[in-house]
């Protein structure tokens, strides 16, 4: 493997690590909090919302938006670190 390829595969590994963490959060808020554990969470309340219901109809969507912008920031930094930014 050439140095250039090593450099690229190190970049790819870090990218995949970010992806795994962010997608884990994506899964937990929607499928976890909003669907699988909804009934358990519904015993708690957030203002007038049952918590599981809130995650399913509001919270998960807010988290989705935040996740993308976090990814944008992380990747812009990573691109700079590896000299792939332009």
């Amino acid at each position, binding site marked *: 493997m050439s140095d250039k*390829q090593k450099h*690229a595969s190190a*970049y*790819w590994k870090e*990218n995949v690590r970010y*992806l795994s963490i*962010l*997608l884990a959060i*994506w899964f937990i808020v*929607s*499928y976890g909090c*909003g*669907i*699988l554990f*909804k009934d358990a969470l*519904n015993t708690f309340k*957030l*203002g*007038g*919302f*049952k918590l599981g*219901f*809130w995650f*399913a*109809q*509001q919270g*998960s*969507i*807010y988290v*989705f*938006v935040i*996740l*993308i*912008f976090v*990814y*944008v920031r992380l*990747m*812009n930094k990573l*691109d700079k670190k590896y*000299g*792939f*930014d*332009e």
Partner: protein
Amino acid sequence: MSVQLWTWILVGLSFALYFGIAIWARAGSTKEFYVAGGGVSPLANGMATAADWMSAASFISMAGLISFMGYDGSVFLMGWTGGYVLLALLLAPYLRKFGKFTVPDFIGDRYYSNTARTVAVICALIVSFTYVAGQMRGVGIVFSQFLQVDINLGVLIGMTVVLIFAFLGGMKGITYTQVAQYCVLIFAFMVPAVFISIQMTGNVIPQIGMGSKVEGGMYLLDKLDALHTELGFNEYTSGTKSTWDVFAITLALMVGTAGLPHVIVRFFTVPKVKDARKSAGYALLLIAVLYTTAPAIAVFSRTNLIETVSNTNYTEVPEWFKNWENTGLIAWNDKNDDGKIQYMAGSAIEGKKPNYSGDRGEYGQRLISNPNDKANELYVDRDIMVLANPEIANLPNWVIALVAAGGIAAALSTAAGLLLVISTSVSHDLIKKQLKPEISEKGELRAARISIFVAVVIAGYFGINPPGFVAAVVALAFGLAAASFFPAIILGIFDKRMNKEGAIAGMIVGMLLMLFYMMKFKLDMFGGGTSEDWWFGTSPEGFGTVAMVVNVVISVTVSRLTSAPPQHVQEIVENIRIPSGAGEAQSH
């Protein structure tokens, strides 16, 4: 001023705006026509993507559906937003780096095979046509509802408008008109929501109002749950679908969203890879405005509806009730002869739509010939929730007119985006890449414009003569995208070892399995079946999830048993994983 006059003024103004933009942003080259020259800023692209994505169904039907489904409606809310996370993280940056015009382009090159390209073109055409027929119908319904013209004339007007800005401007014209359409539709959606939120809860922000207290100190959602229980419905916040089915439908919609060609193609229009990521973020942020407001509208209008009609004398119901009864979207049958409206769980009629007998009853209500023997006396069409909301809440006439302009903007922008994908598939993927590679740029551009014209005519035909299976087929579009495109693209990027044998086998099996399941349980073919016979209790809407998993398993297995992809393809994969040097979108 009357609603009618306001509607003509607002719809007229918004049309003038769209035409102005279309003339300003004419396309001169195929690159401008297909991907707007690759020079759209991330924010503008985000707005265009949002307008493209939010169709007449999102604008008119979704809040109404949720209002009747309660918690179960969450499948649409999460399903149609969560896909953007997958797009931003797993697809958009790499496809932008790859730098071609279309999804079949990627599939064809990555899997070094014209067979794969053809399979992808066929999927793209099926998905887009099923969608666009629904949009054209939506335009017709909005026109006929608000401007009192015939539905067919409404479809024709819509066709002409879409044709003008798509024909002239291609992707460039469409993108900038969609920016304007986003502004119109989101303003039109938010204004009534804010008004009603203030009326019911005193809170300006509907997303918070939904979880606030109403007069009397009770939380709105608790009150609605109590009303539901009292009338024999399931609790609003609990729902009736099984956990697995909610899971499967949500996943199928998310993955389907990320696999829809008219959404993916958007990310070819920005200058750089980092813009593709950012643009997906903006798109979801702008979509989230509507998608977090819709459940609030659902709760407000559901509560309003129950409080207004339940146990009310028919002679005392407000004007809007009788207006919608006259258009055939509400029906009341006084089963116990007390003159009051009893609204309860269960259907009020035999079949799906009320059959009006043509006569009036003793209170002036329209009589129907197909009541059933259940206690519920009221039929309400789900689509009226958003359309009637401003009337139910007694909002000023200009707000009602605004909703009409917003509904038309939503339907037009989505139709235009889909028509472009169809024309690109024909002129670029079929003619340029397969039938006639020596075609000149001018010739290709002409072919693109001709195919857009043909596509509009076909879509208009389906809008005027809607096939009975349209509703079934829209769900099919998501399932198909999930079962065919999504795995092929993801594996193409993340699995270097994936080869053409694996991808083609996966796409074909996934698509056929999905088609089979939908035909069996939605269209009653191959012996049909009821929900008892569903495989693992999965509804046809959620089956895309199962078909997708099958696709992935088959792709991976077949690819490991056959030879690795050639060296130059492995280099393509290494290359798209690195963001720098994306350059401009290329046709070769």
